[in-house]
């Protein structure tokens, strides 16, 4: 056993709490989870069976931490130690072929949260340095610039300026005491900056004060994707510090899956304290404003549309109804795809897979499930994808599979279908 694998095993054991232990103990090797995993479904390769991906961590637990492990060791019945070779063999399974989408939990008769356990397992991998190059590079960018794509404050300001011009509304930067502070994913800032304009338009109409921090604008948490708690904490710290310095009441988590989980659910636990602000997801906020009548709907979009459910927002985030009620308001022709909602397929790029060039082929293969779903909706014209990362994966995927569909963000759609001031008589 090498030093690195020892570090990994040590972290495995450290992160095997009563919850993870109950999962390892309850798995009966029934193989159901394979039927839920898009990587298995699209490749047919048994090694992509979700529970199999946990094997090294499970072994470490059963050898050194499980009840009776001492007795079994004494009798020579404990599993053999985890080797570096094995850990390396599993690296692609842990990073390239798991979106942490948690679809497998739904089919599991034991209700095992494999996605959450993969997250814990990655802690061991990250600590030992067994991390795919692509993710490692993102991490280095984050260390330098605070953003996995290397988006600088200067670039952000340029994008904000463009959007101010486009919608004719001033966007305040670093405004102290604002109600809301918005953060974004790099993907949104660089690829879909219209979302900045959409926010400006919607919040102005709703009468909210909001701001963007020039030091903490990045929501993507590479630390969570790689599985490094120290790094995740460092990234989060910037946002928390900035928000608390600006004395905002709320931080808006953007249309980005993992970012939401990172700040809303994992955040306070990583920091070891509750925040002085509340975290609210943009979809949650928009739905609330809509219900309060602050952003009334005007002319509906008549295109045939469907909704992609980003795993971390819907299945693991609990925002199931909100995007649907917004869509039903804004779109005259909204049709659900087959398997929509809680059981929807991931885009294939979640959990750091899209930031990992080595996994490109797998990601594309996994997207075939999504293509099947999209093709199942007749005369589909557009798909609403409320997650920056999913959106980028969709663009690649639709291109790869020659599908001609428009991809829309939910905030943009809501902004576009916002009633004119005079329409409501306001």
């Amino acid at each position: 056993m090498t030093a690195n694998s020892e570090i990994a095993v040590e972290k495995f054991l450290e992160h095997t709490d009563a919850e993870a232990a109950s999962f390892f103990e309850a798995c009966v090797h029934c193989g159901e989870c394979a039927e839920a995993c898009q990587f298995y479904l699209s490749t047919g390769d048994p090694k992509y069976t979700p529970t199999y991906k946990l094997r090294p961590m499970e072994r470490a637990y059963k050898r050194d931490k499980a009840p009776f492990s001492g007795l079994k060791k004494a009798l020579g019945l404990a599993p053999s130690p985890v080797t570096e070779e094995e850990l390396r063999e599993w690296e692609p399974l842990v990073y390239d072929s798991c979106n942490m989408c948690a679809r497998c939990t739904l089919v599991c008769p034991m209700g095992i949260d494999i996605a959450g356990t993969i997250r814990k397992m990655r802690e061991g991998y990250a600590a030992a340095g067994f991390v795919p190059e692509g993710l490692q590079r993102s991490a280095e960018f984050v260390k330098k610039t605070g953003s996995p794509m290397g988006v600088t404050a200067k670039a952000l300001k340029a994008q904000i300026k463009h959007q101010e011009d486009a919608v004719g509304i001033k966007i305040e930067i670093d405004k102290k005491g604002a109600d809301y502070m918005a953060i974004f994913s790099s993907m949104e800032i660089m690829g879909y900056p219209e979302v900045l304009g959409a926010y400006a338009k919607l919040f102005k109409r709703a009468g909210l004060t909001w701001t963007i921090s020039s030091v903490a604008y990045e929501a993507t948490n590479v630390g969570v994707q790689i599985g490094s708690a120290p790094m995740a904490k460092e990234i989060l710290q910037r946002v928390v510090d900035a928000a608390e310095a600006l004395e905002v009441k709320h931080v808006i988590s953007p249309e980005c899956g993992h970012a939401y989980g990172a700040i809303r659910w994992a955040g306070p636990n990583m920091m070891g304290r509750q925040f002085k602000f509340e975290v609210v997801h943009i979809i949650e906020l928009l739905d609330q404003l809509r219900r309060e009548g602050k952003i009334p709907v005007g002319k509906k979009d008549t295109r045939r549309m469907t909704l992609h459910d980003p795993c971390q927002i819907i299945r693991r985030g609990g925002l199931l109804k909100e995007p649907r009620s917004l869509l039903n308001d804004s779109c005259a022709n909204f049709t659900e795809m087959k398997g929509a909602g809680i059981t929807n397929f991931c885009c294939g790029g979640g959990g750091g897979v899209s930031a990992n060039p080595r996994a490109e082929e797998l990601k594309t293969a996994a997207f075939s499930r999504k293509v099947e779903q999209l093709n199942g909706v007749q005369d589909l014209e557009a798909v609403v994808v409320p997650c920056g990362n999913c959106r980028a994966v969709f663009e690649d995927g639709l291109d790869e599979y020659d599908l001609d569909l428009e991809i829309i963000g939910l905030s943009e759609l809501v902004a576009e279908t916002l009633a004119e001031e005079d329409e409501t008589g306001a």
Partner: protein
Amino acid sequence: MSFLEFVEGPLFLVASAIFLLGVVWRVGGIILIGRKKDISPPKGSAAMGFLKGNLRHFIPRGIFAKRTALHLIAGYGFHLALLVLVLFAAPHIAFIQDRLVNVNLPEMPRWGFILTAEISFAGLIMLWVRRISDPVMRLISDWDDHIGSWLTFLVMLTGCLALQESHGFLRAQHMLVVDVWLIYFPFSRLMHAFTFFLSRGNSGATYGRKGINL
């Protein structure tokens, strides 16, 4: 002391004790590992989630049902039938009343017993042959899975072979396998009969806390 008296008497008591203590030790051990308190502001109740997670996972989801139909039928058939057999077979009731507690369990008629046994056997056989004939199952299965299946099968088989209740030996054979099964149980994956509520519950609690309604 005859062999039958031994396997029905002292050995059965020892095996039962190992079974009970082992189960308590293992479940307790898992819980005592402990976990950090979640301090993120909750949106729903973790306790309710724990309960709901346990109940929700009894019901298969439609979208997966087609792909996993065989497994569901075999799995439910086997487990439910086995439970009924253990509790309501006439010889079992007699044994429980004789040796354990004086409870009045309703006895199954003989045809009911046979039918239940058939379902149970069919389910277990299907589950096991699926384990050996599917690449996914072959990859993820280990010795514990096979030993557990086989021991349970032998318990059921020896029980049925003794159905005529004509030979003490056949009864002793059944009891011997039962004793072995009881001793093996707490150290093996057969423990899933007790750990399932923890895993379902833990996931359910996490979901419940997040206000997710599965």
